[in-house]
């Protein structure tokens, strides 16, 4: 770390309200921004059309070290403490390039972050080194279930006791990168009943007896570039070593907050992409002898995008920094999710309106961003910070 960066970190270490990125956060932001510009933008359309995420892209992304960064040095990782805010900053940049491919690139974090935060010594030793090698390693988290009234507080996947083991039954849907994950972190209703604090998580290898990973994944309005897995848990017998956190279990409130903030961070990037596409288009497009940017009806829509992208980002940063300070981020994360969900959808929708007919045809990215926004803002956990 450069000398002046350390100095600055010391200056800001007092408790003050600050929007200042550390030097290492600036480097992370710029690196991922460049990666997203170079590798994600041009691939977004063909990957959506072909419903695929190329292996070579995932391999390239591995050099960014997104998952390895938060793994302690003892397990071969970068040893960055906390880092939730940095993750949020990075996810915004990935979402700016392409939310769907960006989520695919960041998917291993869905497995790694909970392992780092809640895993037993043995679990960290067994699984974290999978993510510190040279190759992209896919593992993920299974949260969603096939109900229209789905709520993370009231999961229907159960984990009954059988001797020392637990037996998992249920259905999981919309599992990010489910097609190629080697391990699934499956969330289940706790023994003590519903509620985030009672959630339990189990590390299931893909070949666990009773676990069926369906060949046909889920497909949705957007996010086609990323594969969404479907799991059936038909009496999967999990030994104690598979229960994340062992007897202490996990802090389900923190875990869900991390997912809500992660999804919101991607959506901030997506919204900024819409804004940045609308500005040059509105200045170029002439109607009735004048650039449409010179008409208040259009200018105000774009000003609102600018306003809301700022507001959304600060809400995400605030929730992420509360996670980082180990405070209770439940409220801040719910607020970020609610606000970003509403505004990102509005911005993606207005983006099409600014482009008019061009927003509707697939030559332009607006309709893709609109479809991605629709799924992104209703999924409870496409990414983790």
């Amino acid at each position, binding site marked *: 770390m450069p000398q002046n960066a350390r100095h600055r*970190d010391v*200056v*800001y*270490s*007092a*408790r*003050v*309200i*600050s*929007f*200042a*990125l*550390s030097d290492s*956060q600036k480097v992370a932001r710029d690196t991922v921004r460049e990666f997203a510009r170079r590798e994600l933008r041009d691939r977004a359309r063909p990957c959506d059309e072909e419903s695929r995420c190329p292996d070579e892209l995932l391999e390239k992304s591995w050099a960014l070290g997104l998952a390895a960064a938060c793994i302690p040095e003892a397990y071969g990782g970068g040893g960055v403490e906390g880092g939730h*805010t940095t993750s949020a900053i990075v996810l915004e940049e990935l979402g700016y390039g392409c939310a769907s491919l960006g989520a695919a690139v960041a998917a291993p974090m869905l497995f790694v972050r909970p392992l780092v935060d809640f895993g037993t010594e043995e679990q960290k030793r067994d699984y974290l080194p999978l993510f510190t090698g040279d190759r992209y390693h896919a593992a993920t988290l299974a949260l969603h279930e096939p109900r229209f*009234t*789905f*709520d*993370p*507080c*009231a999961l229907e996947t159960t984990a009954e006791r059988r001797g020392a083991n637990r037996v998992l039954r249920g259905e999981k849907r919309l599992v990010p990168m489910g097609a190629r994950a080697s391990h699934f972190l499956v969330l289940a209703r706790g023994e003590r009943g519903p*509620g*985030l*604090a009672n959630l339990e998580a189990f590390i299931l290898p893909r070949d666990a007896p009773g676990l069926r990973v369906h060949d046909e994944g889920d497909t949705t309005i957007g996010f086609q570039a990323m594969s969404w897995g479907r799991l059936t848990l038909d009496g999967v017998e999990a030994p104690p070593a598979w229960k994340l956190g062992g007897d202490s279990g996990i802090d389900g*409130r923190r875990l*869900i907050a991390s997912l809500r903030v992660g999804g919101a961070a991607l959506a901030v990037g997506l919204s900024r992409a819409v804004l940045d596409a609308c*500005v040059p288009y*509105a*200045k170029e497009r002439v109607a009735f002898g004048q650039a449409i*940017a*010179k008409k*208040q009806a259009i*200018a*105000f829509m*774009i*000003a*609102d995008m*600018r*306003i809301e992208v*700022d*507001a959304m980002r*600060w*809400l995400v*940063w*605030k929730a*992420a*920094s*509360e996670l980082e*300070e180990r405070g209770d981020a*439940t*409220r801040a994360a*719910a*607020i*970020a*999710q*609610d*606000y970003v*969900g*509403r505004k990102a959808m509005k911005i993606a929708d207005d983006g099409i309106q600014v482009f008019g007919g061009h927003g509707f045809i697939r030559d332009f990215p607006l309709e893709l961003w609109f479809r991605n926004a629709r799924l992104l803002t*209703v999924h409870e956990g496409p990414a983790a910070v």
Partner: protein
Amino acid sequence: MVDFRLSQNDTEILEQVRREGLAVRKHARYFDEHEEELPPEKFPEADAFPGVSERVNRRPAGDTPPATFQMLLGMARQWGDTLPLRQPPLALGNAALQAAGTPEQKQRWGATALSMAITEPGCGSDSKAIKTTARLDGEHWVINGEKIFVTTGIRAQGVVVWATVDAQRGRAGIKSFVVLKGTPGFEVTRKEKKLGIRASDTAALSFIDCRVPRDHLLGGDETVPRQGSGGFRGVMKTFNMTRPAVGAIGVGKARASLDFAEEALAGEGVAVDWERGRRARSTIEAKLVQMEADAEAASLTVLRAGWLADAGEENNVEASIAKAKGGEVSRTVPQGCIELLGAMGASREHLLEKWLRDGRITDIYEGTGQIQRLIIARAIFGYSSEELG
């Protein structure tokens, strides 16, 4: 490091400001209903709260930087009520004096409460269209015109009045002048009756052949440039800090309304479960979460504008974002709280309906929400006010 926590000292100061606010609430209804009376310089309760300003001035350098902290103070003050426990000694004209005055002028009028007179019967947001004139006659400026909506125009000892010295030159011809009460030709002609903020006096002023000495021209620059906006831009700079400060007012109103509504609902067994997913919330919960999010978003944009000023960075766009968001929540959140509480929420037994009326001006004065969007859009597109008006 990105951080949104406060030091113990800052937390205590803001807590004291909120307690002062609670103390003033019992006077708030009276001055809402007796608009003709000016509230006292300070209420008796003020003596129970010594020295907030001294404590603010003595804050250690490592705590939240000053402009950011001013935003927090503004939110906390407004959380109590629009009515202050102590009347602030200075007014908006003093901000203009500090931003554009010569050292000698700052010295001379620094302790004189000055209101600011821009708006006229024929122009508001479009301040370059003002008709009030100032003509140099020997060693005096002769001012003629009418001004309205002058905040603290009754109470202040003088006014910074905007007038054109050359109507052909648009913005470049606009200068501001200090006129003290008692100057012949300067009269307060009216005290407005308003929807809200009734404890804050709003005046109409008239200038008929009002003569002020030549050195009352703020900043002292008599030239009218052929190109550009001349001193106008300098005076407009006044608003880069006052816009987020007005945003803070809106946030304070929204926060007070939400706290009232949440306490009222909790008393009847309704509260937000923050853990539940978005689709598992009741209608009331969903509305509360939405308003909490809106208020928090506005609050962070206000802090961001202050923080940029502290960091010495350009904050023109962010000041407008803060004003636009603060203005928005000053309208939507108190309205939504009454929507949630029903007819009893609109009762004058409570201050909530007053906060809705008080807050409504926030999206109008110091540049309407629409003006803020114009400022933002011009910056985004690189347009002048002629290109996007």
